[in-house]
């Protein structure tokens, strides 16, 4: 039953082994994209907003 915590574990060893040949390429792609976008966002704030507003100290 969907949403039920007692969902049967769908992975028998053979199917799991086959899937693990591809994992974690997708996770790496998504994670790399997320980190790259974070860096872009951070540098945008740093270069386009923070630095032009002048010195502080």
């Amino acid at each position, binding site marked *: 039953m969907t949403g039920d915590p007692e969902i049967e574990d769908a992975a028998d060893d053979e199917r799991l082994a086959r899937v693990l040949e591809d994992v974690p390429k997708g996770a790496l792609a998504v994670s790399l994209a997320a*980190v790259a976008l974070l860096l872009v966002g951070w540098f945008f704030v740093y270069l386009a907003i*923070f630095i032009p*507003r*002048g010195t*502080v100290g």
Partner: protein
Amino acid sequence: MPASERDILATELRWSAVVAGAVGIIFGAILYAAVALHANPPSNIETIDPKTLHLSGEFTESNLGTRVEADGQVTTRIVATQFTFVPQCVVVPANRPVTLRLSSPDVIHGILVTGTNVNTMVVPGYVAQVHTEFTASGDLLMPCHEFCGLGHSQMWATVRVVPPESFRPDQDGRVACEKP
């Protein structure tokens, strides 16, 4: 070839290296801003007794506002108190180093100046000091940005940035906002 526990750990280790690189880049940029671009959190530690602030010499009412010191340094002194800034309007020159010095005789306040990186807490017991250089002329808003009591919402001041040629200190070196 099923992924062994060792393979999985090796992959996680490689991802950790990516993470270390990413945070390293951010850390490097922060360091560069601090050292080369003079962007640091204001951190001048200087104490002053809040109970005698109005008698302290530096923060007596006649000494507040903007003054050009003998060495040419522009210093603006402001008292933050429930629920007003004294003075409520200050004049500063554009494109010149300015030092803001604030203190409080009562509770915690704080300030920012819109459109700039000027930001500091004003903690009773301490002189808050911020060095900056204003780049654009105009009237900027300087609100109290830390909850200081029921009148907090009405506590704000004006920072009037004037072009250098309009910044004319009187014989005491003082510059004040024109009375309306």
